[in-house]
């Protein structure tokens, strides 16, 4: 299970957000079992701060690639899709036969919202001849807001256990087991959605007051 090389793509525009925190934990877990892992920020490639040829080199050197991304408008942010398009068009030989898995996270509790993100990554793997190792979805990423797993108590331990279990299979070239997803899933009864919405709306009002702007329902493009 050791001596594998793992390249983690942080698909968020934030370098201290939840996707990056997840990437960091996965990196630490991979390294703890004798593998090497590296994180790169996709936004740096888009912004031209990371040389794409260097990324191409990294793809060649690694055995497994992971896309860890937030949900923007129901799938990855556009710069991640731009990056996958570029990889598919320019690095097909480098990608072929390597493992790919995805971790998607969104602010809403319902993880079915993340399905298109996971599907897009799976179909990218299919198109480029990669070995699809599965996807994990986390609902409630906004609440974590970039916190480190070790600072999240039981919740952090449970998420870390899910990633550990997933990595056990991934590093053997096997698909992520369903139990890993179960560990990542927060089961909020639908009955509690209305009180949750009320709580979040109360927080929104506080934030609006703090920003000195209570007119957050403005129809700015119709004014």
């Amino acid at each position, binding site marked *: 299970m050791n001596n594998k090389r793992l390249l983690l793509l942080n698909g*968020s*525009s*934030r370098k201290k*957000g939840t996707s990056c925190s997840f990437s960091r934990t996965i990196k630490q877990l991979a390294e703890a079992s004798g593998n090497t892992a590296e994180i790169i920020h996709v*936004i740096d490639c*888009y912004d031209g701060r990371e040389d794409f040829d260097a990324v191409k080199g990294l793809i060649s050197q690694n055995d497994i690639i992971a896309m860890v991304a*937030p949900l*923007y*408008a*129901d*799938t*990855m*942010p*556009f*710069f991640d*899709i*731009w990056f*996958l*398009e570029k990889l*598919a068009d320019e690095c097909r030989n480098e990608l072929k036969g390597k493992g790919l898995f995805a971790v998607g996270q969104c602010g*809403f*509790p*319902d993880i079915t*919202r993340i*399905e*298109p993100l996971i*599907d*897009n*990554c799976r*179909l*990218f793997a299919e*198109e480029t001849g990669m070995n699809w190792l599965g996807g994990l979805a986390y609902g409630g990423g906004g609440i974590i807001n970039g916190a480190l797993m070790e600072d999240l108590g039981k919740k952090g331990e449970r998420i870390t256990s899910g990633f550990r279990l997933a990595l056990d299979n991934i590093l053997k070239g096997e698909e992520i087991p369903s139990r890993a997803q179960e560990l990542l899933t927060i089961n909020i009864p*639908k009955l509690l*959605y*209305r009180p*949750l*919405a009320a709580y*979040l*709306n109360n927080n*929104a009002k506080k*934030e*609006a007051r*703090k*920003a000195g*702007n209570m*007119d*957050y*329902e*403005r*129809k*700015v*493009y*119709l004014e």
Partner: protein
Amino acid sequence: MSLVILDAMKAGNGISDKLKEELRRNDKEFSYFELRDMNIMPCRSCGACGFISPGKCAVKDDAHEILGAIARGTTVIMLTPVRFGGYTSDLKKAVDKFMSLGLPTYIVKQGHLLHPVRYGSKAIIGVGVHEGISKDQEDCFNKLVEHNAFNLQSEYRTLFLNTSSGMENIQKEISSLLREVC
């Protein structure tokens, strides 16, 4: 009735011209955006569109023109090659900015937490162009359009155009779509 066309096709594809021709022939009012030439910057999750400048992205780019048209319009047609069962980055760069069409508060609808919509519901049409795709890719594209529409609390419809079926058939498909949605 006002249509907003988000065109993510490459230059000289033929389908974009057919769509414009059909719109003009049917005397439809529309706003047309050729996304490949537009300067739309990525969302940086700065949160400004929530409370600092509510409903307006702090980034000064061409997305404001599109969002203004959507706010005033009734129907959004998204024309894109199907890539990895979804949209190309050229379309997604515009769709990512849909965030500011919602309010920063929450409602519960059909058992889901959602953001209320700022400008009311729209009809969302996803037109996926391909040279032959699997059922799996079609299903994935359908699901993405469905989720986008659900977030905007809108009705949706998808159409797939296979470029190998010939331009005459494509024109018929477009014509039939416009009859249905306009």
